[in-house]
């Protein structure tokens, strides 16, 4: 029996590197169009709203609301077997409608989670190379 499997890690590419490098510094940045100000996430080479290529990363507040959530019961993803069942939330950032980040919601009972619940970002240092932005409920 193998030891606990490693969870999937991001395969960071040129488009996404600024997001992950900022996360290392415990900052949440989202790619934003400099022509129409639309936030694009995941990052794109062309703005999804106006098709401009003038895209740079800007800091965001890290606050948002729970758009939806589910409780995962299947051991489909390596490294998550010990945490089953686990919560996934879809966070809609306060900066723009329909701009989403996925997170887990650790140490929270299922009953405490509701759509519309307020959350804020925190940063989980996985190891020297990787920090994951995650969200927690605002009391």
């Amino acid at each position: 029996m193998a030891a606990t499997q490693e969870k999937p890690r991001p395969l960071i590419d040129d488009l996404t590197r600024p997001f992950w490098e900022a996360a290392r510094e415990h900052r949440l940045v989202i790619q934003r169009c400099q022509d129409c100000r639309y936030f694009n996430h995941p990052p794109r080479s062309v703005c999804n709203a106006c098709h401009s290529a003038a895209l740079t990363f800007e800091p965001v507040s890290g606050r948002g609301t729970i758009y939806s959530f589910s409780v995962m019961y299947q051991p489909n993803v390596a490294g998550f077997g010990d945490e089953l069942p686990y919560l996934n939330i879809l966070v809609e950032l306060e900066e723009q409608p329909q701009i989403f980040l996925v997170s887990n919601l650790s140490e929270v009972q299922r009953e405490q989670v509701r759509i519309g619940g307020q959350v804020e970002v925190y940063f989980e240092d996985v190891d020297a190379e990787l920090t994951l932005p995650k969200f927690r409920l605002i009391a």
Partner: protein
Amino acid sequence: MSWQGKGKTAIVGIGYSELSRRPQKSLGALSLDACRAALDDAGLPAEQVDGLATFPEAPFHGAGTQDGEQIVSVEYVMNHLPLAPDIRWYAQIETGLIASAVIEGVNALLAEACEYVLVWRALHNPRGRYGAWSGNRAPGDAQFMAPYGCTSIFQWHAMAWQRYMHRYGATRDHLATFVTNSRRNANLNPNAYFYTTPMTREDYFAARWIAEPLCLFDCDIPVEGCVALVLTTAERAVDRRHPPAYIAGYGQNTSRRRALFHYSLDNYMESGHSLASKLWASSDLRPQDMSAAELYDGFSPSTLYWLEAAGFCGQGEAYSFIQDGRIALEGELPVNTFGGSLSEGRLHGMGHIAEAVMQVTDRAEKRQVPSASAVCAIDGSPMLRGSGLVITREP
């Protein structure tokens, strides 16, 4: 004014392979079984087939693409059946699911690019856990999901349905009506994987969670097998073994999405409407004209979204619309009369098309809707991608 192609093409044969979880035969061999069965059903010699179309996509990302084993391509069928020596036309599509392949075939026939088109959908059921994430490095958009354990399409459907329940007040109890109705229909469909397995509401509520709020029976049943059909022009359709099932209209999901993450519930109405409005405009028919509706159910809520987006009921009303026997075989709008993907098997919409054909040609036996004149078959999910057909008894 309706579409000029209305009633000018027809489906004249349907063939099923065995549908099972772990077949003895290869997927390629099963697909040839289905193709031969469709040709036999049409009474058409293989050498008259001069057009081919399929949607060969693997059942989920990472499931393998070995031709004849895990997918069945145009090239595979071309090389393994004694078709016309000169294949005049083919298409292997990548978007829109299998109704889009039928639409391509219809267009090819209308353009006189060929005379008889064979369309099939082969579905592989990989061993191991269905939809398991295998890589430890997540590329592209998956890098923002996989590190959080959110890699499966059913997790996204679960979140969309959670949102729907929150917004409109639907409950699991409402969904149970739909799922058990589908099973009841499958119990009248000898092709169905669950033909001999009934399901009570208690069975439904006892099922294990997959991703709450979706349980095992809210997910379609993965099978390995193939369904094929033969498509030709209305003129050539009349002297075949069975009555023709005419293609009265078609549509594809063409909405633009602003949000980039997988999908949310918010655009299901506008997105599904982009398909449905083309269905109704091309066929010059309306939802009220449908004798039955075969609506994609890869996950049970998708059918409810389609009922709303296609105009069978208003937004937020589907969960109440489906109650009180309304969607039963005896009801005012029978839905998924063959059991759907939930209970017949995961064929990515091909079962829905085959059933629409069976209904309008009076071949649905114990599940026949009396004198069904028009049935729509819609593939996909309104938030993602999809395509659909209106199939009629008369041209």
